[in-house]
């Protein structure tokens, strides 16, 4: 056996036996970013999202108005510059407001314009993606109504989520018993109002309190993240061994099968290494297989 073919065989066999890496962290694993306009007296804005690493990969969200919470956008992990300009303003004009936000892989961030127009700020909210305890959901409150200088939000029979929360502030997440069907909102100087809100186990919500056109408050429960209400324990039994290398009780067959696998995999390895178009797909697995042992 020449040195090269031995190396190739080893690589191919390792790849065939290891099959898959135990864990991977691929570069294209994105994070999530969404935008919110939560400043009652600020006119609609165009929001620009620009990757610091790749300025060409910019996005514009045109005419985002008060109360809007965008859908999450999947973005490569990295730092993003968020700029707000008046709706229809020249993209080259200086932004009214700007900030940067760090988006990691498998994380979610909400960038929100908050507070009164006279004191407008861009806030980066960390959206919680950790699993709530069994049988629980998770709530936070975003006070985005100038009509309520402060407010209380609670789940009847459950914990308080917001207490004396000032306009433009956001609470941390609070675990609440799942299955709750309402939340109580009490603005300062007003009466408690119970609103029907379904709180599903395993889900994470932002309760937005907004100024209502014509007076009063509008409450909206935005779904931040969801997961199964009951999380299965452990893995899955999904195989009977029929392709594990021969039938049970005949040790010769698995060896033969492995030997056949070695030959096939070795051949495949040689073939793939000489075929450029496939080379891109295979090396990752070879490398991972080698890394494993």
């Amino acid at each position: 056996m020449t040195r090269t073919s031995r190396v190739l065989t080893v690589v191919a066999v390792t790849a065939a036996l290891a099959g898959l890496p135990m864990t991977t962290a691929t570069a294209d694993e994105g994070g999530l970013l969404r935008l919110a306009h939560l400043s009652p007296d600020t006119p609609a804005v165009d929001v620009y999202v620009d990757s610091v690493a790749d300025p060409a990969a910019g996005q514009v969200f045109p005419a985002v108005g008060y109360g809007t919470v965008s859908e999450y956008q999947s973005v490569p992990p990295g730092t993003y510059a968020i700029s707000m300009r008046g709706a229809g303003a020249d993209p080259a004009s200086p932004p009214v407001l700007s900030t940067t936000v760090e988006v990691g892989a498998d994380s979610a961030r909400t960038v929100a314009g908050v507070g009164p127009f006279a004191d407008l700020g861009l806030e980066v909210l960390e959206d919680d993606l950790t699993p709530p305890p069994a049988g629980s959901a998770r709530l936070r409150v975003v006070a985005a109504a100038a009509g309520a200088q402060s407010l209380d939000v609670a789940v009847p029979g459950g914990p308080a989520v917001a207490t004396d929360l000032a306009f433009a502030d956001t609470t941390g997440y609070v675990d609440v018993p799942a299955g709750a069907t309402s939340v109580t909102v009490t603005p300062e100087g007003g009466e408690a109002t119970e609103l029907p809100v379904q709180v599903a186990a395993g889900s994470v919500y932002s309760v937005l309190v907004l100024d209502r056109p014509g007076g009063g408050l509008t409450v909206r429960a935005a779904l931040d993240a969801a997961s199964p209400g009951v999380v299965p324990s452990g893995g899955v039994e999904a195989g009977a061994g029929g392709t594990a290398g021969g039938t049970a009780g005949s040790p010769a067959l698995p060896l033969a099968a492995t030997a056949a696998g070695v030959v096939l995999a070795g051949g495949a390895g040689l073939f793939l290494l000489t075929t450029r178009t496939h080379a891109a797909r295979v090396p990752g697995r070879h490398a991972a297989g080698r890394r494993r042992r």
Partner: protein
Amino acid sequence: MTRAPRHRAMGSRSRHRAPRRTRLGVLRLVLAVLVLAAGAVALTWPAPDPRAAAGTAAASAPVAAPVPGPVVLAEQPAPTAVPPTRVRVPAIGLDSGLVDLGLDATGALQAPTDDATAGWYAGGPAPGDVGPAVLAGHVDSVRGPAVFSRLGELTDGDRVLVDRADGSTATFTVTRVERHPKDAFPTDAVYGPTADAQLRLVTCGGDFDRSARSYEDNVVVFARMT
């Protein structure tokens, strides 16, 4: 939780104490009045254009009323929860109907009884809804390959299509493929909350433990809707 009530209690306590610290109290009052006055001037004086515009828009509202108006719930789209009917993965020639899956007596996800058909964990999000939708299928039977036998061949960027009961199709893109020992199953990564619509395909892999008649590992394909 504990902080807020304490904060409130402290507030009332200091109010009780105020008479004993009259001079400081007066100073505070003067400061507060000054701050309020400054705030009022700042709010009323320059009146920049956009705020003036906003003011006219809300002119019909009883702005001056000290008592807040009604508190109402915004109209929200009802959660869809359309069950999936088929899973198709062109890259590995997979095309299977889907049965609903539940949990066994130990709380583990039950694989489909038919090894030629994949299943959907009906206790979790539906494919296309926010959250991790989970599909499971056998890698093999005692006779040979089963529905998910080639799952481990998938790589980043491969497409997974899920047909849904309303006739629509949700398209997912594979982001990573992992293999884990069953006794170290990555429960949080597989079932933990996600902010977008994601998909997991789970089957068996690794070495087959003949005495336990069980594979030692699970292969998990992670995908997100695109």
